[in-house]
């Protein structure tokens, strides 16, 4: 479903801030794979997601989604294939628009936006039912501005928006990192549910090793802009945080540097 071949990206080339963010990333996701991505700060996790999403052109390599080479497509065109949830709850939704208007925008992802009415009656009932499944009472506030919602509510709405038009790949970039632990757990549970019900192929970056182990059927670890560990199947199910730390030291020859990943 998703194939990343030898992708390189360097930021600020030729300046003192030069940073080789991606150093030949290779990764293949099969249909229905749910991959969690971990790694220390600056390992290239978010950069890899942004490379897939097309935030900027990569320097080298190819990105294929469902067999289509999207390497040359700008961000808004790749959006046809991708659902995205961001770390900042403010990023995924439009604050000055109503909840139903936000969903209607997402329902037209990948379509030409013409002069038809922005939201249909049929959609309103559909959105009402969908919002009900969130169990947050939002179905009764469909005409409220999204700016009035809490961070957790906004992430829940963003998840709905990302999956409304079934994406080829769902990209979750530390989407619970800005939430309090209780809300984060709720949003993670919702994430699992949405991925399972819609049979989505997904990739979730997280700082939290336990979450990375508990969710998904595959786990990859990144370091210095490369995928250094790729665990799946039974091995993933038996994985513990201690195993991961040992494996990290084995593969990278360094000690895992992020306290947050241990404590979280």
């Amino acid at each position: 479903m998703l194939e990343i071949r030898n992708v390189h990206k360097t930021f600020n080339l030729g300046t003192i801030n030069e940073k080789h963010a991606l150093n030949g990333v290779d990764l293949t996701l099969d249909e229905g794979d749910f991959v969690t991505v971990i790694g220390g700060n600056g390992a290239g996790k978010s950069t890899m997601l942004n490379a897939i999403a097309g935030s900027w052109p990569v320097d080298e390599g190819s990105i294929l989604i469902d067999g289509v080479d999207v390497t040359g497509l700008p961000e808004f065109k790749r959006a046809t294939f991708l659902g995205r949830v961001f770390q900042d709850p403010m990023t995924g939704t439009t604050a000055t628009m109503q909840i139903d208007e936000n969903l209607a925008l997402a329902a037209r992802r990948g379509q030409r936006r013409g002069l038809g009415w922005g939201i249909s009656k049929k959609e309103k009932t559909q959105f009402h039912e969908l919002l009900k499944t969130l169990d947050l009472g939002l179905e009764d506030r469909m005409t409220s501005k999204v700016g009035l919602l809490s961070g957790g509510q906004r992430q829940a709405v963003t998840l709905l928006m990302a999956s409304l038009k079934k994406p080829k790949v769902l990209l979750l970039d530390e989407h619970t990192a800005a939430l309090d632990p209780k809300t984060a757990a709720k949003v993670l549970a919702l994430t699992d549910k949405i991925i399972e019900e819609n049979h989505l192929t997904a990739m979730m970056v997280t700082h939290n090793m336990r979450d990375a182990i508990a969710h998904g059927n595959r786990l990859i670890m990144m370091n210095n802009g490369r995928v250094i560990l790729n665990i799946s199947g039974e091995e993933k199910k038996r994985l513990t945080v201690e195993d991961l730390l040992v494996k990290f030291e084995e593969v990278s020859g360094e000690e895992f540097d992020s306290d947050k990943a241990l404590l979280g």
Partner: protein
Amino acid sequence: MSLLNYFATLNPVAFTNALPGNIAQGLIWGIMALGVYITFRLLDFADLTVDGSFATGGAVTVMMTINGHSIWVSLLCACIAGLLAGLCTGLLHTKLGIPPILAGILTQIALYSINLNIMDRHANQALSIDKYNLIISSRQLTHAIIVGAIFAIVLIALLYWYFGTEQGSAIRATGCNPAMSKAQGINIDTMKLIGLALSNGIVALSGGLLAQYSGFSDVNMGRGGIVIGLAAVIIGEVLGDAILGKHMDFKGRLTFVVLGGIIYYIVIGIVLWLKMPSDDLKLFTAIIVAVFLAVPYLKGKSKSSFKKAGKRSAAALSSASAKEGK
């Protein structure tokens, strides 16, 4: 004594006589403010093109009418000229990476020369209602107000419809959250281009109306236009929020923007009636807009400022130490 003399010279009849003219002009500038509202509020793009495109609208309308075209065709072409001006600013910004305010200023300054060229290298051109079949004129004020109101209502209806469509929603989303818009597959560059073109098309239309109303077009007729447009938008919003409160919707907002233009011109009428020299009007306008822009900020600050927090803290500390003293 001199103050009494001053009041004695103020003639209430002169004020009421001037009122219909103020309302008609206010309507025309209110239409212009609808264009400013699209860029300033919906697209979050402070577009200074309007000072130029307003005059372009006037110039095209007058020159085409003089050259034998019907007034409607002339107005339509004025609109298209404005559209192209907006497109130009949009391209400078989206394709060449020039910041919004600079892109607008560049187009505006270029339009000054272009407008002179349109007007046969004259700074102004007359358009007499005696010679041409104009649709709005200061000679027939009641008629002018009705025509202005019809234009405003039709435009409000069209804009209300358009910004409810898929494309209009995409423009609104682009203005509020570009990152999300891209993630939802919206081409934000295209949306900015459409919004800027639409805005300046409306501005040029109102320029065409004002040229007919006043019987001439002038290369400087749009100077300071953005400030008048902003004044109308802000006065309208403050007033609308005060009157409608929670019930303020998009239709209401657009209507109050036009009303803001009318109120602005009535206020101008009042200060002129109070014998303020007309040369000082632009200074006065700038002060009004600065005040209205500053009010929301200062209101927020009055609720929570370091100064007040410091005072509260000092009071709490001193009362605590007083208790300890006991």
